[in-house]
């Protein structure tokens, strides 16, 4: 999952980016509204965290512009202004949730998780599709209640695929969303990882959780099972 953080306070932005990266996300940073707007419109991202109190270009304008340009990813607002007036303005402009400064990092992390799974259409942070259950808050995967050991990158891939269960995800999308900037991008590496995942999840090749569509990409094929 690729996140965009637009925040003019350097200390805060870098700390936030660091902590999000530790949580397994790929993070883009922008220090001002102009750069932030550009990233928001041009970069492939899954979620944007935008500070409302930006100098020059206001956070509200970035949100409106992004929505107008058809960007549907969830937007989380950071704001020092605690008043309902500002929260309502932000939400009306197109944001999906807000966090008031100063905040506990856990709060941001929880809301980011919630927004990501909501955008995938999941109502809870436990994604279950048949025997495969992924708990986003604990970052654990189980198949038939048996815990599966995954590397952090493998986890990222399966989380992404499951969040967007039913959608076809191209290799380039996976590469864009999951790699940090300094990681070497090679689509063959994705193939290798998918292969490894299949082996771990589906050793008998009976479940076939991940489907390959030639020339198009991969898809998490199991049906969501949610009440």
């Amino acid at each position, binding site marked *: 999952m690729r996140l965009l953080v637009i925040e003019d306070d350097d200390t805060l932005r870098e700390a936030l980016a660091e902590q999000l990266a530790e949580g397994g996300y790929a993070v883009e940073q922008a220090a001002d509204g102009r750069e932030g707007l550009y990233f928001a419109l041009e970069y492939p991202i899954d979620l944007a965290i935008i500070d409302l109190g930006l100098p020059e270009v206001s956070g509200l304008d970035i949100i409106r512009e992004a929505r107008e340009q058809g960007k549907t990813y969830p937007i989380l607002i950071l704001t020092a202004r*605690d*008043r309902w*007036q500002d929260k309502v303005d932000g939400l009306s402009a197109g944001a999906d949730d807000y966090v008031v*400064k100063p905040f506990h990092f856990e709060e941001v992390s929880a809301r980011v998780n919630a927004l990501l799974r909501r955008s995938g259409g999941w109502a809870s942070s436990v994604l279950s599709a048949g025997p495969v259950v992924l708990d986003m808050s604990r970052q654990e995967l189980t198949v038939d209640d048996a815990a599966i050991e995954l590397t952090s990158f493998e986890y990222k891939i399966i989380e992404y695929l499951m969040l967007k269960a039913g959608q076809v995800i191209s290799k380039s999308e996976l590469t864009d969303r999951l790699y940090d900037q300094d990681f070497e991008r090679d689509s063959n590496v994705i193939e290798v990882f998918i292969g490894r995942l299949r082996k771990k999840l589906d050793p008998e090749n009976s479940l076939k959780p991940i489907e390959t569509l030639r020339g198009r990409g991969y898809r998490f094929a199991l049906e969501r099972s949610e009440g």
Partner: protein
Amino acid sequence: MGSLSARLLVSVSVLMLLFFGATVVVLDTAFRTAGEQARQDILDGHLMQLLAAANPNAEGALSFPPDLHEDRFNTIGSGLYGELRDDANTPVWRSRSALGLEIPTGDFPTLGNHQFLRESLDDGTPLLTLSMAVQWEFPNGELKPYVFKVAESLDAFNAQVAEFRRQLVGWFAAIALIMLLSISILMRGLLRPLRQIETEIGEIEEGRRVSLSERFPTELSGVARNMNLLIDNERARSDRYRHTLDNLAHSLKTPLAGMRALIKDITAERQLRGRFDEQIDRMDEIVRYQLRKPAASAADNLVLGPVPVAKEVERLVAGLRKVYHDKRPTIESEITPGVKFRGDTGDFLELAGNLLDNACKWCAGRVKIRITPSGDPQSMANGMVLTVEDDGPGIPEEAADVLLQRGTRLDESTPGHGIGLAIVKDIARSYGGKLTIARSALLGGAAITVSIPPISEGSRA
């Protein structure tokens, strides 16, 4: 005396009374004086006639012909009488008109002196009399003093004077009334600018106008200009205040957020980190509470127009639905059309936002907000009663009192709950209203009501 018009009318009436009164008196006096002068002249003429008509007779006394030239002397009770007295002051002749009447005699006047007197007959008729004493030179050279006297009844004259006075007073009264009427009509036109100012201020209060039009006569243009300055200053002050607060918020809270983020890097004891976090939380709460104080108060009524309540609640509910996406509470709103909140939009959103947020947080699945006017819905001054209820666990009575005190939290696990209600209470109070916590009869959970009274004469608290 409260009304300018009344004051003006009364002053003008008094002035007119004085001036017209003086005029009437002057005219009346002049008429009477002139009349009297005329009558005296006439009497003088009659006296001359008598003098001419007197003739010495054979006995060496004065006598008159039986009929005098002036007919009135000959007619009984005509009102014009003549008398001749000798040096012993005894009447020796009276005109035929004086038959049967007692003309008062009087003293012997000084020789040659025209003596005008006012006397009356025995029956009370007022008389103007003229007496003159002469030394009559008889043909034989004898000189004898005589008093010639003529008297005229003043009845006719007095009636004339009275009639004149009646006419005078009558006409002046009519003129005075017409003047008062004209002035009243004029005044409506003259005072129109005052009514216009009143109307325009009313429009400003309703938000239909931004400033007074300044198309006023010189005396009022100063007022209008100053009023506009006042309005602008108030708006600027409100904006400045809010701006300052925003800047303060930003400058204080961003370093606080930075501090929090940095704390995470302290890998030393978790306990120390926890205590740091606690202190930062407290600073945060204090800053939040102080900075969320109401932006407006009752005194700003003139500057702030009514808040579009229904529209703002809609935005708020839409926002809350996003925030509570997972819980998916049913948020029902029942807002009487035309209900007005006269104040700062931000303050209204604080009231409704905090209450709805709490309700959504605590509810089992249903939340309802109801806003009705408190007072005449048609009047510009009406207030508002806002109630938010939920189907959650509700708030027990003891807890309710504690909650309403500043900064106390009911449930530590859901931060910010206590502050929200304390802020709502502060805002309600600044608009002269109050906050009550009860149990919802409809949904079974908490029902929190904020009631803002209508504006009365001379503003709220």
